[in-house]
Structures are given as C-alpha cells and as structure tokens.
C-alpha cells in the first residue's frame, strides 16, 4: 500500500487551518494532542475490549459501541510512547476513516479548544519521527504545545505497515 505517496503533503502548515478552529484535546503519554472536533464522532469510556490475536501491536482490540464494532488503536503504541500500566482507565475517541469507525485510546480527553490559526505552525524540523508521521502541525497554547493529529495518517500508516 502506498497511500502515503498518494496523500498530498499536509505539512505545508497553516494553509489547511482555518482562522479559528475547534479541537478536541487529549493527552497521550503526557503530551497534548488535538483532533478537529468535527472528526470526532464520540468519546466514551471503553468497558470491554476484546483482544484481537495476531493484530498489529497498535491495535488494542475491538469494542462494541452501541451495536457497532469499533477497532481500537492505542495511541501510546501508535506514537511510540511507553505502554500504560495495567488497569489504568483509558478514554476512547471515536473517529471515522473511509466509513469505518476507529477508536483512539488515549490517557485522557480534555476540553474542546477553539484555537486561532496565528498560534499554529508547522512541525519543527527536529520533531520525533513517529510524531512527525502523524502530526499536521503544532499549536502554541499558553502553557503547552498541542500536536494536531492527522487521523488518516494514523490509520493509513498502520495499513502500510501491515502491507509491508
């Protein structure tokens, strides 16, 4: 799969960011991430996660969201963070990619932030490669930096990894 190549390079930065946009903020491994609010279908506390043997390590399992089967992707794994301790509560952020629901497992979900494009900038050149793969750019918040996640990349690269 070479979707990566077919995808326009979004790292061009501010071009894609409207003057004012809303992001759902979430924390993974102490780092703040943001996902455009319109992409988020649902946020919930996953109860029963069914492990899928032989799945890529990033796939934490599948879960039942009101009758739909949702594939859970552990963002810690995906982005190369330390695995979280057993039994720690996670949150699931449900998104959709190509009509298929996925839930991103994160440590915590914060508030919805309405951010100004002026505080956005493209990825710094020294950004960790695993983050750079999925990051659209960085928002400079007052006290923190927020990485904007490109959801398609999160899933696509995973696909690519499988095909490879």
């Amino acid at each position: 799969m070479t979707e990566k190549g077919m995808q326009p390079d979004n790292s061009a930065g501010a071009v894609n960011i409207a003057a004012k946009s809303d992001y759902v903020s979430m924390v993974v491994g102490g780092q703040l991430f943001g996902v455009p609010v319109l992409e988020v279908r649902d946020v919930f506390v996953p109860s029963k996660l069914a492990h899928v043997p032989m799945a890529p390590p990033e796939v934490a399992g599948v879960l039942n969201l009101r009758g739909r089967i949702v594939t859970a992707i552990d963002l810690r794994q995906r982005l190369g963070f330390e695995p979280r301790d057993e039994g720690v509560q996670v949150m699931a952020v449900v998104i959709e990619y190509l009509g298929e629901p996925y839930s991103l497992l994160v440590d915590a979900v914060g508030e919805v932030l309405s951010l100004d494009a002026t505080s956005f900038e493209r990825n710094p050149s020294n950004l960790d490669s695993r983050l750079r793969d999925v990051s659209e750019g960085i928002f400079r918040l007052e006290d923190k930096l927020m990485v904007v996640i490109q959801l398609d990349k999160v899933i696509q690269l995973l696909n690519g990894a499988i095909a490879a």
Partner: protein
Amino acid sequence: MDDLLNEFLTETSESLDVVDAELVRFEKNPTDKAVLDNIFRLVHTVKGTCGFLGLPRLESVAHASENVLGKFRDGELKVSTEAVSLILKSIDAIKTILAELEANECEPEGNDKELIDRLNEVAAGKAIAAESPVKAVAENPSNEKKASSSPVGTSNTFADGERKVEPVLNRDLLPGEVSLEDLEAAFNAAPGPDDDHVPAAPAPGTAETAAADAQHADRMEKEEPASQPDPKKAKPAKIDAAVKNSDTSIANQSVRVTVDLLEDLMTMVSELVLTRNQLMQIVRDQEESKFKAPLERLNLVTTELQEGVMKTRMQPIGNAWQKLPRIVRDLSHELGKKIELQMVGAETELDRQVLELIKDPLTHMIRNSADHGLEQPKKRAAAGKSELGTIKLNAYHQGGHVIIQISDDGAGLNIERIKQKAISSGLATEAELEEMSDLQIGNFIFKAGFSTAEQVTSVSGRGVGMDVVRTNIEKIGGTVDVRSTTGKGSVFTVKIPLTLAIVSGLIVESYGERFAIPQISVIELVRASENSEHKIEMLRSSPVLRLREQLLPLVYLSDVLRMKRKGPAISDVDALQNAETSGHRPKDDFVVVTQVGGFRFGIVVERVFDTEEIVVKPVAPILRHISVFSGNTILGDGSVIMILDPNGIANMYNNNSVEEEEVKAEAVSPDEQDKKMSMLIFRAGDGTPKAVPLSLVARLEELDCASVERSNGRDVIQYRGQLMPLVRISENCPLRTEGRQQMLVFADETRTMGLAVDEIVDIVEDVLKIELTTETTGMVGTAVIGGAATEVIDVSHYLVVAFPDWFEESRKTRVKAARRILLIDDSPFFRNMLAPVLGTAGYKVTAVENAEQALALRDEGITFDAIVSDIEMPGISGFEFASMIKADERWGDTPIVAISAHGTSDDFERGRAVGFSDYVVKMDRGALLRSLTETLSVYGEAV
C-alpha cells in the same frame, strides 16, 4: 422513459434466459409444441417491446429470429441444430445489445446484418418448399393501414408465418419503421394471455399502445386456446402485466421491490436479532422479571420476522441454473460429446446473495464435468457405457445448508495423473502421496494452478479453474469436495450456507478469549482429557487425537493465534508453565473437529460454550489481512468476539508449519538456530525418549525376534549375508522374545551394528543443546528436543560394545599410517559425535574445545595432518582461527576443513578466502570423510 427502459431490461433478460433453456429443450424434442410456443411468444415479446421503445437494432434481430421460429412453429421448417444454433446466436446478439443499452441507455451503433441475413436465409431458403401462400392474410386486415411510417416492404414476414415470405424481407428494419405494424403482428401472433411483453403499459397515451391494446384484446378472444401458456412462465411480480390482464390473479399478488430495500431490511433485522439476544441475556439472569413475558413475545416475533425477511431474499437455485442447459448444449457441440444435463431440486431456495456468488463456480464445474469428466462417445461406447453422457445437478437442503451435487458418469478423476501433476508441481512428494487416500489425492484438483487436462481447450484446462471455484465457495463459508470412482464418474459436492448474514456459531474459549467458529465447518466436538479414551497425544510437537481408529491432526487455537505467554488471561501458574514448554498442556481440552474441503482437523480449545446465532460483520480493513478471522460479531452479552475462519486456519497450518517451526526455534534461542539438525527420536529401555543424530544412522530395520542368535555371549543376527552384532541400550533392558524388534543400524564400509530399540518415535529437526551431561555410559547427556527431555546417546560407546576393536581395527586395516586430525568444536556433543566418526574412518583424533586450545597445541609443537574446525565458536571464530594458522609457518601448510551448520555459498567463499581447504555441513558425515580423504590426498605425504 428510464423506468420503462429499466423494466424492459429486467424483463427481457429474464425472458432471454428462459428462451435459452427452452431452446435447448426444444432442440431435443422438436415436436413439443408447447415449448416452441413458449419460445416464440417470448421472442415475440422482446421484439414487440423493442419496437415500442424505439430500439430498432434490437428489434430487427429479434424479428429475424422470430421469423425462423415462426417457420418452425408452422412446420414449414425442419428443426435443425444449425438453425437452433443460429437462433441462440441471435439471442446472444440481443443480450450484447441489451448490455450496452443498460450501460449507455441507448442502442449501440452498428447493425447485425450478417446475422439477420443468415437468419433470413434459413427462414426463406428452407421455407420455400413448405410455403402456403394464402394463409390467413385476412387475419390482419388493418395492419397495413395503421402502419404509419413504414416506407418499404411492409408486407414483411410475420414471424408466425401467417404471411407469405417475400424476398423483400431481407432488408434491415430501419429505425423509423418499427412500431405499430410489428406490434400488432406481435399481438396477433402472441398466443394466450400471458403477456410478458406489455411492460410498456405504464406509458399510456401513445396511440400505439392504445391500438395495440385494442388489437390485443381482440386477439385474445380469438386465440385464447391456441396454445397453452406454460404456467411456470407466468412469472409473478409483474405489475404491469397485472394491469393488463385482470384475469391473471397471481400477478396481482406480487410486488417488485428493489434488492437494496431488502438488504436494508435484512441489516435492520440483524440488528434487531442482536438486541433481542442482548435483552434475553439480561433477563435470563434475573429470576423474576416483569419483562419476561413481553420479551418472550418479542423473541418470537423477532424470530418470525427474521425468517420472513430471510424468505424475501430467498430464490430458487434454479435461477442460477438457467443458463446451464444452454452452456451444456454449446459445449456438447464444441467438444463433440453427447451430453445430457439433468437438474433436480431447482426449487431449492437459498439467499440471493449466496445464489449470485454460487453461479460462476457452478457454471465452471459443469464445464469441467463436460470437458474433463465425460469421455468422447467412442470411448464411452468402448467402455460399455451409453454414448450419451449425463451430468446431473442435484440440490437439496440439509440442516442449515444447501447441498449441491454435480455428478457425471464419465471416467472419474485420473488419480495417476493427478499424482504425477502433484509431484511435478511440487505440491507433494511421492512418499506423501503413498500415504494419501484417493479421496485426498482427488482434492488436489482444488489447488492453485492444477489442471490435468492434457490439452488446453477453450473450455477448460488452463489450471485456473477449480482453485478459483474452491476459493469462491469458501469465501461464502461453503465447502467443496470431490469423490470419484474410476470409470464410473465423479461427484462434486458443494455445501453452502443458506444465508451469509446470520450464521450459527459455536462459541469457544482459549486463553481467556472467546471466539466463534461457524457451525457449518464443525463436524463434532470431542472432549479430551488425560484419563478419558480420547487423549491428545504428541508426535514430537504435533498434537494428534485418536478418533475412531484414525489419527486426527490437531492445532491448538492458542498456537494458531500466537497467544502464548501473552495476555492477562493466564492466571494459573500451571498454564503459564505449560505454555513455556510446549508439549504439556492443560489436562482437559475440547477438540472441535473441523472439516475444510477434504481436510479434517481438530482445533483444540479450552472451553466450549453454546451455539449462538451470530451476525457476521466484516472486520476493519486494518485487520483484514489476518486470514484466520472471517469477521467479528457482537454476542448477546454485548461483547465483541472474532469469528474464526477454519479455511484460514487450515491454510495457515498446512502451508506455514515450517515457518511456525522456525518461529518456535527462534523463541527458544535465536543464536542457537544454526545448530538445528535432524535427530532420530526413539524409545528403548526406560520411558525417556532417546535421540541420535540421524546422519549417524545408516538404516532403520525391523527384525523377527526369533532370528536373534547368541554367539560368543553376544546377540547377533544374520543381516544381509553377514553376522551383525545386536546391542542393547543397556544391560538391564532385555531384548524382546517374540514379535518384531526394531533396531537402528550403524555402519561403516565393512561392518554393521544393530542397536535394539523399543520404538522409533519420530524424526525431529531441532536445536541440539545438551542441558545436562550425564555419567550414564552410552549417553552424551540430556537435551530438550521437540519440547521433551531427551537423552542423546553416545554412538561410539555402542560401537565399542559391538566391536571392541572397532576403532583399532579400522585404523590398522584401512589407513596405512594413521592420520592425525585435530578436531575443534565448542559443542561437546559434536566432539563426542565426530571423534568416533573420524576414529571409525581410521584417523587419530585429538579433540579440543576452542581455537585457543588448538593454538596451545601448536605452541607445544604438536603437528597434525589435517584440522577440522567449527566456524561458529565463542572467542576466536573459525575464520579468524584459519587466518591465524595460515599466517604462521608452523601449521601453515596443514589443510583445514571447516564444518558448519551453515551451508551457504557466501560462507563457503569466505572460508576459501581465509584458507580453508574445504567446507562441509556439520552433520554430513559422509561429506566430511570424503573431504578429508581428498584434502589429504591433495596435500599428500608432503605434510
């Protein structure tokens, strides 16, 4: 117009399928007037409707073929194969145009002059003799007048042959000229009330329609009894027909709905079923619940609703068969065979989705039967069979499945040729084939690239057939299987589920995770435990179960899913330990006996729950590559579980067993992987398995205990004209006194020795790592081989037992001046094993553990005739050692032979480069000896 066109397309293609089938019937039985009438009427309908919709090209073709049909009907033309072929061809032409029409909503350019001309020739040429010019012209007095815009040749040819055939009829019908006249003729000719051809009705208001109607009504009265419309052809679900014919009451009761609507309904019902299951589960846990009664009702209603909706999707399998008579007919002409196609159970219903998917595989199998299965008439006659070959299609329900059997009375599968093919394409070895039943061998035809047809015909033989058939059938959860009797024919049995959406699944558990196995693949459940009659036994690392006098290969689900040492589910220490050393498993297991094609195997799981109706949902794209899952589903309790695909498991298990092995070996210790070798595992004396490197064993023999003789206080047997000593593994394990005794034979060029053993267990490729050294004589030590503690025997010990002078003797007799060999190997096992081997060959061997020790010997001034050195050694490696030796003049001229588990050419080259004289693979004893002989003769006495 759109709707009208759609309607037309649907109906016409249905009609044409019927025509195809009917024509074949008709050809066989040209006197069957009812069939002909039916065909005629259908073609006529098509023609009429085309005119109506302004489709001149279609109409002209339909018209010309109708002409010929008309002649048949009136007996003016004799039914001949050629004529029927021609008509079939024109039907094909119509289909092609229809396809275009469907795609572009307009007729394609071009005309079909050639075809039409030929049709007309047939109609005219042969009709002349039988002409009856004055027939019934008066019947349609108003025709000509009403024909508004037909410029030329209006007096043409009504297909029913009521008119005299004029030469003019050869011209093409032009776009403008269609309509009324033909239409009227159509109505005139159309016998009976079953008017498929009036879908135009929803477009009222055109003069033509009205006229046609009038005419039609008129004719109806007169011609009503002319021919009996076949009641089967009175297809229901034709609203417009109903509008027309108030007397066909059946039509009134059906409604056409789109498939999409049905699909949606099905999806919703599936959801409902799930929710119902969930509710039931909740209430089941509560003793007293006021929901109980209403839930019970909901349950009932849901079930009925589910059944009802399923029914709407059901279609008789005959729909998938419609094209077959035509195909078989064409084939029989093409192949020069006489073939009869019998179809039984066409009314058997199954889900239309399944039906669609089964169509192509079925067609292919019929083609195959006709092409490969049935013999040429001559051959058949010679074999004492009727020249007419029969292909029988039989469908029936069995459980939740539909069984379709395609049988032929041909020659049966050519097992010999399949064997050859299997060997030549590397699918199996001769030895493997020996073990297989004909049934298993027959199933090779479903492997990819497998075609035994000697010639590639246009029909089949390209080897892309049956594997695709199998794949397609398996995709829908079905199975296919072949049984064949040489000379009598073959039977292909296809078993497919009634529906794809809801299947019944057996819920099982392994390592705390639950999975569903589609019930269709499950044959039976066996509980296996240590003390019951069913006990899982291990053949090395391969678990098997004795089931009704047969060995059933097993796979542990946890192995298949690589769930070892993973997941929080392993709570008990026992299981954890067991997982570490594969081979010992929990005591109680369930074996789900599963069949995939002709391959039967057992899936070992830890628990089995009940069977549940599950709604199969596809897995997410990022998980779709995992072939062992066919989908996932939500259980009644709301949890998501994966649905196992037995096909995937079987494939993985069959194809990747080698890979699996490697994975396991890696898990043990990646750096030890090099030292894998073949070991012969046997039992002798106590129960502990014993092992000996296979390369040291010359043969395995079985002897009659009575043939053991005593000589000079030792057991000997006559073996190949010589006396061969038979030694026992230890003093305190006696030989058997009766029956057969198995033995391992060790040999060098002149002498042989037998080692009596109780049982030969297996040949295993594994890492040999002596874990425990031992003081026991005859043993090198204990190693874990294939997951079990195994004693490795010291062959040299037994050689000496058999021939106390073995080593001395060989030295004296075969090597003039004993060559001194330095053997360097870090593994004590190899030192122990190779030293005797070399000793046997007459060399004087000094064995050291590492290069450092060897260099120490050099420093002591000791010299050797040759050095045999391992490559992979801790500290100084073989390569480094060789360079060091070559760089120093003391041993600089001594040839060095490298031994290694690797046998790659790279290593070989590298070995040469650093100064090795030769390079042999460690366990190849013969090669080592040969190499030494050569090396020493090259270097000669000079050293």
